[in-house]
Structure formats: structure tokens, C-alpha cells
């Protein structure tokens, strides 16, 4: 469903992505790994349209999205769960859900009731301002916001960032729940434990390219790749 070819992108004079090729099948969960600064977040932001690519193509079910505005890309079915959650601190949980649902209503299976079924904590906190939520709750709110647009592809940038291990586990369960519902996902992660738990396949980036890809089980078995590309044993 997603087909990225020769994608180049970056900021002002520095090119970060140096020709990314990436394919993703519908319903697949891809764990995107790599050291700091290899371009994972730039790739996610370029796919979302927040960073404009200088070359290459991005196709989502045949439609070319490279260089489009983020709102156009969002309406084409891509949703982002950004690094650091980026919820609106003064808005309530209910307002967040309403804002997202208004854009996604009737375009797919996700509505407020179903999202709250997946993330019951949000139902209990719906009258609270997002700024009053814990980090884990904010992460769940960011996930809910993405799901309510009824996306075909969800991009998650370091969902475990800054969360306690127990909370990371519950985020892992939520991602597993999304996978069961058939959501296609790209999950950027530093936390290998979480990436291994949720991903069907692992892709590794280095110096602005995707340099390795294999099924998760295979990747875990062959620790030499992780050692060489991620610097972990």
C-alpha cells in the first residue's frame, strides 16, 4: 500500500534523507530502528508532509503524496502520532477527540466509542485538559487523535519516549490492539523490546537510507545486524 522510492529530504542546506526506499503492505506493522540522527523522524515528517522532500516519490495506494501539504496527506489517509505527543495542553480530552473525529467521521471503522473501547483511560479523563494528563495518557490521546481520522496508515514516532517501563508495556498492548484491527503502522522506536513486541518486520536506517530489512524473528535471531547497525549487543 505504501511505496517510497528514492526519497530525499532535509532542512535548509542539510540533506538528511539520501534516497529512502520503503515498501509496506496493508495491515503490516513495521518497526523502524536506527541510531540517533540517521533520519527516522525526518522520514516520518516527510511522509506526513511536515518536511518537504527534494526528490523521490511517496505513493499511498497509487496516489502520489510527495510534496503535498500535510492536510492533503492527512485527508489521503495518513495519520501521525508525533514524538513527544504534542497534544494541545489547554484543550480537554473530549475536545481533542471531537476535533479528530470531525475530520474522520464516516470514513472508516473508528469512532469515539470504539477508540474509547481500545483506550478506556481516555473515557475516564474526557473532561480534563490534556496538559493535566500523565505522559502515558497523553500518548494514548495522541494515538486516539490519529485513529479517529480513520487513517489507512499510522506513523508513530517513538511512542515509548519518556515513559516508564510499565506504561511502555501498555502502549505496546494498544499497538497490538490496533494491529488486530488491521491498522497499517510504521513505528519508529529506540526501545527494542517494544519494537520487537509489535513489529512484523524490522527496518534499520543508517545515514539517511534504509539499509536493512528483515522479519522481526529473523532480526532477533541474528544479533550481528543489531550489533553492527544499532551498536547494541
Amino acid at each position: 500500500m505504501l511505496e517510497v522510492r528514492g526519497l530525499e529530504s532535509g532542512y535548509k542546506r542539510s540533506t538528511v534523507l539520501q534516497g529512502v526506499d520503503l515498501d509496506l503492505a496493508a495491515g503490516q506493522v513495521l518497526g523502524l530502528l536506527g541510531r540517533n540522527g540517521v533520519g527516522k523522524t525526518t522520514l516520518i515528517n516527510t511522509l506526513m508532509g511536515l518536511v518537504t522532500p527534494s526528490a523521490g516519490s511517496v505513493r499511498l495506494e497509487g496516489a502520489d503524496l510527495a510534496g503535498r501539504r500535510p492536510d492533503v496527506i492527512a485527508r489521503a489517509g495518513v495519520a501521525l502520532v508525533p514524538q513527544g505527543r504534542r497534544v494541545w495542553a489547554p484543550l480537554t480530552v473530549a475536545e481533542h477527540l471531537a476535533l479528530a473525529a470531525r475530520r474522520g467521521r464516516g470514513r472508516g471503522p473508528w469512532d469515539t466509542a470504539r477508540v474509547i473501547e481500545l483506550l478506556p483511560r481516555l473515557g475516564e479523563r474526557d473532561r480534563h485538559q490534556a496538559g493535566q494528563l500523565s505522559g502515558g495518557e497523553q500518548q494514548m490521546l495522541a494515538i486516539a487523535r490519529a485513529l479517529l481520522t480513520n487513517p489507512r496508515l499510522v506513523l508513530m514516532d517513538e511512542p515509548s519516549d519518556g515513559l516508564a517501563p510499565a506504561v511502555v508495556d501498555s502502549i505496546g498492548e494498544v499497538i497490538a490492539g490496533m494491529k488486530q484491527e488491521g491498522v497499517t503502522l510504521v513505528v519508529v522506536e529506540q526501545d527494542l523490546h517494544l519494537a520487537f513486541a509489535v513489529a512484523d518486520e524490522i527496518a534499520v536506517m543508517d545515514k539517511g537510507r534504509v539499509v536493512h530489512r528483515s522479519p522481526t524473528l529473523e532480526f532477533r535471531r541474528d544479533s550481528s545486524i543489531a550489533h553492527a547497525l544499532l551498536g547494541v549487543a
Partner: protein
Amino acid sequence: MSVVPDSSTDASGVGADPRTGPAPGPSRAARLATRGIPLLVLLVLLASAPLFAAPFTANTLSRILIFALFAVSLDLLVGITGLPSLGHAAYFGVGAYTAGLVSIHWTSAAPVPVLLAAAVGALAAVATGWLAVRSGGVYFLMLTLAIGELVHQLAQSLSSVTGGSNGLFGIPSVRIGGEPLTLAGYVYWYVLAVAVLGFLGLWLVARSPFGATLRGIRDNEPRMRSLGYSPFRYKYLAFVVAGGFAGLAGGLFAALVRIVNPSDAGFTTSALILLAVVLGGAGTLWGPVLGAAVVVLVRDTFGPQLDGHGPLLLGVVFVVAVYVLPRGFAGLAGLVPGRRRSTGGTA
């Protein structure tokens, strides 16, 4: 009139529709008590003011209400949408001239002049906002400043219509049921009724899903885009709504003072009203009401007693307020226990 902040029929607040639930808080009855009753008391006090106050006081209160409505309309732009405008008086002025001309040449029967003032104010915003809203930051400031000066210049040069620099005078009194309102107290009641309806309208806009969208755009525009929103449309609509309510305030102003000068559409008026918003606390809606009261009192009431040093006093008040109350008068409410308001950090 109901100014109770919840239209839900759910008495307990439990099980309310999660998509429309208001801010966290106790049950509806308790919210009614904590917010509705003080508002009602205030409204009764305001409505009874002419019964014991001198005409001059009623006149000052009318001015405060008009500038408060004007300030709250600007707060929709500055505080809710994040678009600080330096030309908002353009729409106030357009509204004032419209109401004046309608009253002179056609009818001064309430509420025709103020409604037309609001409509023409909104139309002026439709015409000018298209360009202004496409820019942001300092460019938005400069474009709105230019729009304000343009309207100011037009008011001065189209003297056959506007009376030029002499102003548009000879505006007849507002009529209700054929009777002209000449006593300051009656005019005040008229201003109060229209202004309260205006406040209610702006408050409903700000707390609607549209208002939440505007706050989302203000705090993180790329994030709203990522949800599929096209921010331009929403900002443009906010600009038009703000222009309409500024026009309404302008229409009331024409009814009150019965003379309109080009300076009412000019930079000084725009700057004063922006000052009122910042002084009161942008984004709170009620803060700018207090800000407008201070600006009007300092400029019109104490100013003349200071040998024309009103603006100086206003400047001093502003500088002190910036240091002492960085979030305006509304920031004081944060010091009151029980009123929680989180600040940025995760947006």
C-alpha cells in the same frame, strides 16, 4: 436570558456525551451556582445602574460596554486564534459609519442600524481578511495595520459620504417602537442589551467545536494540518466573525455618541483595543472586558483631569501590568484556589 455555561440536560454530568463535554468540574447544579449566579448578579447590577447613577456615569458605562464588546471580538482573533491584529478598528469604524449613515438616510429604528453595522463589518472583513490571513506573525501585523490606515484614509477622503475630517454628525437617536431614546439611561439599556447578546454570541463561538479548532490552530498549526484541517479556512472565518462583532460594537458606538470620526477607524483606536486585550488577558474573553474598562476609564474619565496626559497614564498602567500581571487581569484568577488552568509545555 440564560448565561449558564452548559446546555446538557444531564443533571449529574456522568455519562455525558464525551464529544461535547465541557471543562472538568463538579455537577451542573454546582457549576450553575459558581458561574451562573455571579453572572446573574452582575447583570442585575449593570441593568439597575441607571436607576442610581448620574447620566455621565451611565454614559461612561455605555462606553465601557461598547469597548468591551469590541475588545472581546479582537480577543477571538488575538487570544483564541493567535492572530494579533493592529487594524481591528477598521471594522469598528466601518460599523460605526454604517450605523450612522443608515440612521441618517434611512431609519434609526433599533436594531436595524446595529445589525447592518455588524453585517457590513463582516463584509469588510471578508474583503480584507482573504489577504491578511494568508500571512502570519509580523506580516499579519503589518497587513492589518495597512488595512486600518486604508479605512482611516477612506473615511477622511470620502467627505461627501463620511463628512471627512469633520466627522459624520447629526446621527439621530435610536428609536424603539417609534420613540427616540434620548435619556442616557435608556441608551445605556439599549447598549447593555445588545452588548450582552454580543458577548453571548462570541462566547458561544469560542466554546464551540469551531472555537476548539481555532485554539488548536493557535497552539500547533502543523498538528491541525496533520489531522486534515486546512487552517486558512478557519482563520478566515474567525477573522470575518471578529469583524462582524467589531462592526456591531461600532454600530453601538454610533448610537451612543452620535458622531463618528475617521480616528475611530484609525491606528490609535486599534492600538488601544489591542492594549485592552493584552491588559485583560488574551484568550479568556472576560479578561479583555476588564481591560477595556481600564482603558476607557483612564482615557476618558481620568485622562481629561490630567491636562491631556491620559495616554501617558495608560502607558504607565500598561508597563506596570506587563511586569506585575504577565497574563493580564485574567491571570489573577489563576491565583484563586479551585480554578485550574494549565500552561503550555506539551503543546
